[in-house]
């Protein structure tokens, strides 16, 4: 046998001699590692799912919405975001590939016998591409329709379901406030979590103005509910946000000590924030699971101490045969590390199986990543080395004569 292999075969003999005991010893490690893997995989899965939802809305998306204006220490709910702001941004700031303004208002809808009140959004034609919307059926209105104020509407999938059920809505008419609009498109369902487009009703802003008067500011600028834009280079998102902030502050004549009267949210930033929050959560879950690893480690130490006591005579024999202290403690340390390594491997398999089953239920998707597996296995080996050290040290420092005399 190769010389460097000998300690490993000795460790194997030590473990294999007490199969049940070895198994019970590593059970704590198995459970700990399995818990870490399962919980982390759930956390990572949730993170991946949320990030992909955010990205489905367009990761280069930046949304500006009006905020409260503070005036002499008094917050007023006056809307100050205008179409002219959008035009200024489009004209003065680089790295923007598309920009769109929208104005929402609650309107009465009538389809056949159905009568309901819903939030209708008047948008510019770029809205679809900016917000990464996809059509399930029909078309979105074009620049031409927008210029002419053509009365057409594009519906979210939920709205279509509510108003038309299974019948084909394309070409159908809806009375919307004072005008009648024709359905030209249905959006693909996104199932997204926030501000889902599934519930949206989009008409050209110019058509909307024919039934609702778009309010204006004191300067005569037309107010909007939001401005959304896509950044051509996602790396530049932060920079673009800063630029827009300073441009809008100038346009709204905000002094240096006055809060912004608008909110800017970039998907890039949102994704980072969410991913950070979930990451922290995942780490917390992992840390709780890791406590059981620690308990498992103490179990390993306990059994190693018993094992050293039982094998005192063997240690004496080995010393008489010329084993150095180093030979003895490496023997026991390898045995402890071998136990916890085996526990780690079994734990990974169990944890993986658990996370697979959780995934199979369909409520949460889980994601087992290589870094967690490697971390869990190396931590368990580390635990073996750490908790095996004291028993191994004890064994190596036994007096050989006394050890030989023991029964």
């Amino acid at each position, binding site marked *: 046998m190769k010389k460097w292999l000998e300690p490993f075969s000795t460790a194997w003999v030590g473990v294999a*001699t007490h199969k049940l005991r070895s198994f019970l010893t590593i059970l704590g490690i198995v459970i700990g590692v399995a818990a870490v893997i399962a919980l982390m995989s759930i956390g990572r899965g949730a993170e991946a799912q949320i990030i992909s939802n955010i990205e489905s809305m367009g990761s280069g998306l930046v949304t500006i919405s009006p905020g409260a204006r503070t005036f002499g220490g008094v917050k007023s709910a006056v809307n100050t975001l205008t179409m002219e702001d959008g035009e200024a941004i489009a004209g003065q700031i680089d790295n923007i590939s598309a920009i769109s303004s929208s104005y929402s208002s609650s309107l009465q809808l009538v389809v056949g016998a159905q009568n309901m009140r819903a939030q209708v959004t008047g948008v510019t034609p770029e809205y679809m591409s900016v917000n990464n919307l996809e059509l399930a059926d029909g078309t979105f209105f074009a620049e031409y329709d927008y210029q002419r104020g053509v009365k057409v509407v594009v519906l979210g999938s939920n709205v279509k379901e509510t108003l038309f059920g299974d019948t084909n809505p394309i070409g159908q008419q809806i009375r919307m406030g004072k005008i009648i609009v024709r359905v030209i498109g249905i959006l693909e369902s996104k199932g997204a979590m926030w501000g889902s487009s599934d519930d949206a009703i989009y008409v050209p802003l110019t058509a909307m103005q024919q039934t609702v008067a778009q309010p204006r500011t004191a300067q005569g600028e037309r107010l909007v509910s939001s401005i959304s834009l896509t950044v051509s280079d996602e790396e530049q998102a932060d920079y673009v946000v800063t630029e827009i902030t300073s441009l809008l502050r100038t346009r709204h004549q905000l002094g240096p000590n006055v809060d912004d009267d608008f909110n800017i949210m970039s998907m890039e930033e949102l994704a980072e924030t969410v991913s950070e929050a979930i990451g922290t959560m995942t780490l917390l879950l992992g840390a709780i699971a890791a406590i059981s690893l620690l308990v498992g480690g103490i179990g390993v130490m306990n059994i190693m101490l018993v094992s050293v006591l039982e094998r005192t005579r063997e240690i004496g024999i080995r010393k008489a045969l010329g084993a150095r202290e180093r030979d003895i403690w490496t023997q026991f340390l390898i045995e402890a590390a071998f136990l916890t390594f085996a526990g780690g491997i079994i734990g990974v398999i169990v944890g993986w199986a658990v996370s697979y089953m959780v995934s199979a239920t369909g409520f949460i998707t889980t994601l087992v990543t290589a870094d967690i597996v490697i971390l869990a296995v190396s931590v368990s080996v580390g635990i073996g080395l750490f908790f095996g050290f004291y028993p191994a040290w004890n064994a190596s420092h036994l007096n050989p004569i006394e050890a030989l005399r023991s029964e």
Partner: protein
Amino acid sequence: MIRMQDITKVYPMGNRDLTVLRGINLNIAQGELVAIMGPSGSGKSTLLNLIGCLDILTSGSYYLDDREVSRLSSGELAAIRAHKIGFVFQTFNLLPRLSALANVELGLRYAGGSDRKRAMEALAKVGLSDRANHRPTELSGGEQQRVAIARALVKNPPLILADEPTGNLDSHSGAEIISILTSLHAEQGITLLTITHDTNIAHHCQRIIHLKDGQVVLEERV
């Protein structure tokens, strides 16, 4: 080969010290066959443990192959045990979970690495080739002691130390063990020290050292 001058060994026992060896002077030449006799408590085993570098003397000096070993570190002492000294114990001290062959291989483990072929050869020398895969519990006392002798000699040590090797055996097996040990000495020129209570065995040796109360009281040439 062995030169001991004025060796003492004191075991601290609570607040009273227990003096086991009181000034031993001993010279043993290469290739000698020596018996150590004496009543129990006379310090025979302690002396053998000191010679075998298992224990550290309290005062005096001990030269093994002209090397002063009383001041060596535990690692250096382990290396001497690994390469120069083979032990044979009264209680055999085989590892119960290993086969006879694996027990013999263990004798090489710390002396450069296991070697199955050499272990088989050593087993053949003690006439146990056919018992190589038996566990110690499946062997008779005499056979177990023969495995232990094979383990001691597998690394070809210049010195073999035996502590009452026949003490746990019937007279027939004991005689076998003695004949194996004496023939090893005769054929390979191994230096052999054995503790014994049996005057018959002692008279197979070249020299008998009598110990009493930690001192050499008589040395006789046979």
